[in-house]
């Protein structure tokens, strides 16, 4: 896993403040929290002398193939649609307590992270996932409830 320090080493380290942050270190922390993308640093993006670093950082952030932005991967060939993850997901429960949270059909489908479509779990609205954003935590509600290990985080 990449650390803030590693990202900082690849940045211009000029503290130019063009990104809106006070220092390159602060920008690195912002990158870590997914508040920024590498493109948000203009010198890094445009200055040819940082080209190598820019490509390296972009490579780190290009979403892993098949994974959502939170790193969630659904192995569709394993999933059989039992819906344990849908009912156990704390965000699903909070957003739709009488539907998905009670084991029934979703009532507010647009607010859910996980739904079952054609017998296979599908991830949507991943930005709502607790593993995402500023206050992320290592929630594993959907992993431990899956009988066949069809959900994974990278």
């Amino acid at each position, binding site marked *: 896993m990449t650390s803030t320090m590693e990202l900082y080493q690849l940045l211009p380290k000029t503290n130019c403040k063009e990104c809106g942050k006070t220092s390159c270190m602060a920008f690195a922390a912002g990158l870590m929290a997914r508040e920024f993308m590498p493109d948000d640093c203009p010198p890094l993006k445009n200055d040819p002398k940082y080209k190598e670093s820019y490509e390296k950082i972009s490579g780190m952030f290009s979403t892993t193939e098949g994974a959502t932005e939170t790193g969630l991967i659904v192995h569709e060939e394993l*999933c*059989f*649609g*039992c*819906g*344990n993850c*849908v*009912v*156990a997901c704390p965000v699903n*429960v909070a957003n739709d*307590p009488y*539907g998905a*949270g*009670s*084991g*029934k*059909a*979703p*009532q507010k*489908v647009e607010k859910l992270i996980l*739904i*079952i*479509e*054609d*017998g*296979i779990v599908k991830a949507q609205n991943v930005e709502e996932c607790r593993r995402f954003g500023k206050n992320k935590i290592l929630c594993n509600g959907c992993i431990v*409830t899956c*009988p*066949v290990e069809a959900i994974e985080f990278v």
Partner: protein
Amino acid sequence: MEGNHNICTGCGLLCDDIEVELEKEIVNKVYTACRVGVAHMKEGSREASFLVDGKPVDEPAAIEKAAEILKNAKNPLIFGLGTSTNEAQKKAIELAKKLNATLDDTSSFCLGPVVEALLQEKFKTCTLDDVRHKGDVMVFWGADPSDSHPRHLSKFSYFPRGEQKQRGWEEERTAIAIDIRKSHTAKICGNYFFQIPPGGDAEFINALIDGVSGKLPKTSYGYPPKKLLELANILKGAKFGTIFMGLGLLYSLENLDPIIRLVEVLNEKAKGEFHLIPMVGHYNMRGFNQNLFAETGYVNSVKFENGEAKHGPEYSTVEALKAKTVDAALIIGSDPLASLPRSIAKNLLDIPIISIDPCETLTSKKAKVYFGNAISGVECGGTATRMDGVEVSFNPIIETKRPSDEEILTKLTEAL
């Protein structure tokens, strides 16, 4: 998701919250259902099909031929019906009476004895909705609902929030698996998985009863008493406990007395109440058991003689075929040639078979007369009884030219 929900008849759970999207009268997308349900629902919408000796014919010809076979038979066997609606099952019972036939369903080698004991009120039971709203301890014994009833844990027994269980599974529910192997359900149960040797169930039950009663639990296979006592204490602390009894437990017991006694003892010693629910597989096997019980007082394996029902193991499908006492077979929604042991199934080939099945099966291929009927719950409506005894009615999702098994049975009765 505007409350326009369908019933899934894929298994004994009869999930009532399935949404489907149709495209040109074909089920295109299915939401909320598990893979079993999706496959089941997408099966529908095919042309009607009637075969006599493997050649396509029209419906009246097929009915005529089937009626002729049944008329000429002295003791026909009517078998299957686990995947038929209550209405079709009642028609089949009527037909069996008229024909003096042997009538049986898959429950005679499945969970029939448990449903019979349940209908005779030998133990306490409850509905799955009770489990969702109140259940705090659930034991999956010799059952693996993750594979057989995929939505059991997520819709009813473990994960959902219920009226009196608002804080969810982590805090308020304990799922326990007792099995001979680490099943998918056992994996979810984590530390509460108790692995026992094959055939060790009866002893384990007795040891548990000892443990609950404050004695030192002992088993001949040396199960750690500490672990047994831990389990006994969880069961004792339950306010609303349920044992989901699967085939694994039934096949391992000589009779039902041990498990009935365990439920009794737990009801005495535990904080709250304890229940037993059989894990019925086919979507309406319990319905057949109840319908026949209401009519004759028996749940399966009956032989009608001038309106009177005789009951005994000799009238079960397996025994009747073994002894070759039946001389024709009307098989509805079942595939005994594929599912029965070969030594018994081969006797079926000596007698004419009439097969009513939505799918092409080994039995339908060997049948003298085959009716491709509508899939109940997808192409035709009706009522069915869920594994916990709740009656559920459903409407067809798509239109079909295929007749329902109820219609075929009605026409057959008329032709006789």
